[in-house]
């Protein structure tokens, strides 16, 4: 995630030369601009990072939620009408391959330097992952379970709600996990169009060359991704108790 920022952005953003206003007032560590100053991080966490973390979570949550609704609907329709599978996959794959920085920039003339621009781009990146996982999950429901459902007189809707979706759930949640981690990473780039999130302190640090802020924001994004993933693993375990039931 931050790898892309380090490589691509100084040339674009840091044109005025480093501006390091706090350097004189800080500790030795800050004045010498060492790799990471723990004291500065703890003293400035609330001011510099806490709102950014909230923004980052919001950006991610909204993108994955909207992406899930769209991808889920597309997967359900494809499951019924498999013929549309190929065009939908090609379209979502096309969106997925647009370079993120270019995507955010492309949206600016359309929807401005807004959350909408950022979310449109982020949602686009979730679609392929969520669509493919949901569809695969549904397609891999065992045929014998479907035959049993049909023979027992479950309606199509009952079969979907009671058999197909529950059995597709592990694949669906696996898709959500990948999407969440991907979007937490990509959302740092959204700061490029000024919508905040943990990308903002990274961009600022690139501009003024302040290493501690740069490292702290990057590590926070990684930690956020790990925590989100761990929470989703717990959700998955709670929702699919049968998957862990072993013989014996």
């Amino acid at each position: 995630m931050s790898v892309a920022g380090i490589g691509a952005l100084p040339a674009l953003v840091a044109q005025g030369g480093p501006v390091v206003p706090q350097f004189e007032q800080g500790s030795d560590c800050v004045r010498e601009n060492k790799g990471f100053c723990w004291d500065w991080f703890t003293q400035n966490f609330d001011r510099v990072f806490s709102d950014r973390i909230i923004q980052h979570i919001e950006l991610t949550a909204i993108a994955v939620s909207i992406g899930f609704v769209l991808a889920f609907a597309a997967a359900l329709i494809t499951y019924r009408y498999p013929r549309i599978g190929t065009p939908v996959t090609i379209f979502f794959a096309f969106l997925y391959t647009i370079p993120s920085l270019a995507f955010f920039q492309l949206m600016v003339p359309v929807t401005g330097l807004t959350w909408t621009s950022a979310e449109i781009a982020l949602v686009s990146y979730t679609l392929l992952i969520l669509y493919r996982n949901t569809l695969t999950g549904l397609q891999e429901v065992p045929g014998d379970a479907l035959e049993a459902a049909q023979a027992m007189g479950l309606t199509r809707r009952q079969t979907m709600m009671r058999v197909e979706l529950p059995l597709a759930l592990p694949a669906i949640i696996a898709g959500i996990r990948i999407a969440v981690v991907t979007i937490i990473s990509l959302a740092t780039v959204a700061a490029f169009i000024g919508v905040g999130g943990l990308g903002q302190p990274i961009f600022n640090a690139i501009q003024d060359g302040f290493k501690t802020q740069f490292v702290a924001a990057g590590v926070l994004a990684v930690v956020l991704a790990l925590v989100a993933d761990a929470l989703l693993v717990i959700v998955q375990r709670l929702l699919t108790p049968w998957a862990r039931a072993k013989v014996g």
Partner: protein
Amino acid sequence: MESTGVPAGASAAPIAFHGVTKRYPGRESTPAIKDLSLEVPAGEICVLIGPSGSGKTTAMKMVNRLIDITDGDISIGGQSVRRMDLTELRRGIGYVFQQIGLFPHMSVQDNIGTVPRLLGWDKARIRDRVAELLELVGLEPSDAKRYPGQFSGGQRQRIGVARAMAADPPLMLMDEPFGAIDPITRERLQADFLRLHREVRKTIIFVTHDIDEAIKMGDRVAILREGELVQYDTPDQILANPANDFIADFVGADRGLKRLRLRRLADIELDPAASNGDADSVPTVEDSMSLRDALSMMVTLRSTALNVVGGSGEPRGRVTLETLTQFMDTGESGPAAQERVGEPEPEPAPAEPEPRP
């Protein structure tokens, strides 16, 4: 609240095929099932058997309309399946198949309770029913909370049978239910299922490709070939009087031996006078032994006769090799000829399948 689509309180319903034909699109000239008519009295097991492509599974699946009927009709307890609501029809018919099709994400209790839940039973009633069924099929009450993945193949098929019987359907369809199960477990499941069927009289349509299973399980056996019914009769009659060379070939050259397995020594007339005589040189066996095992015993022990005793050792008489060979090849039936081993209930004379009036 929905009805099960079959007469309330019926524990078994008769079923009848009336001139049923199935044609698949694009293959209209060679119907998968051709003008099939047969009747299964309430509470009997009818085995459909034939080589692959004979249409036995197709015929079965038209009963709950997993496959649509092209022509003719099937009636359950006098009601046409074509006129019944599809979901109600299916909820009123138990369905067991080779792949079992348990829902891996549901506990055993939820699997068995699927149809009762659809029918709107309350939770306590479902729980009681599940406990009752688990006992009936030989599983533990504590198994209710476990998941299908935690059971062996044989146990899973027991759960499958319990699930099919959950809402007490008057009719059950069984499509090679024991086909994927190892031979030893299969024998036990077959025996257990026959015992269960004596307790819970359901009408059953049972598809298999295994003639031994057909003879063992069926009150009647319908042999199909290329979509046509070739012979429909009791196992004993089919073995004794195969309708043509195809049937004779299909049931096997050892059909005489197979007939012997249908009877126990207790079912035949023994020679009472001979039971004293030279008792020392003649081996003694219990009357629960099948005629086939008795023959095997004679061959093994190089004896032409056996002394037969009852369960508590009381003498019953003597059976000779000559008696056994009569049962093998004459078609001559003793008083208990229509009975299956271990199932001493009288059976009506085999009815010719009637065409629809």
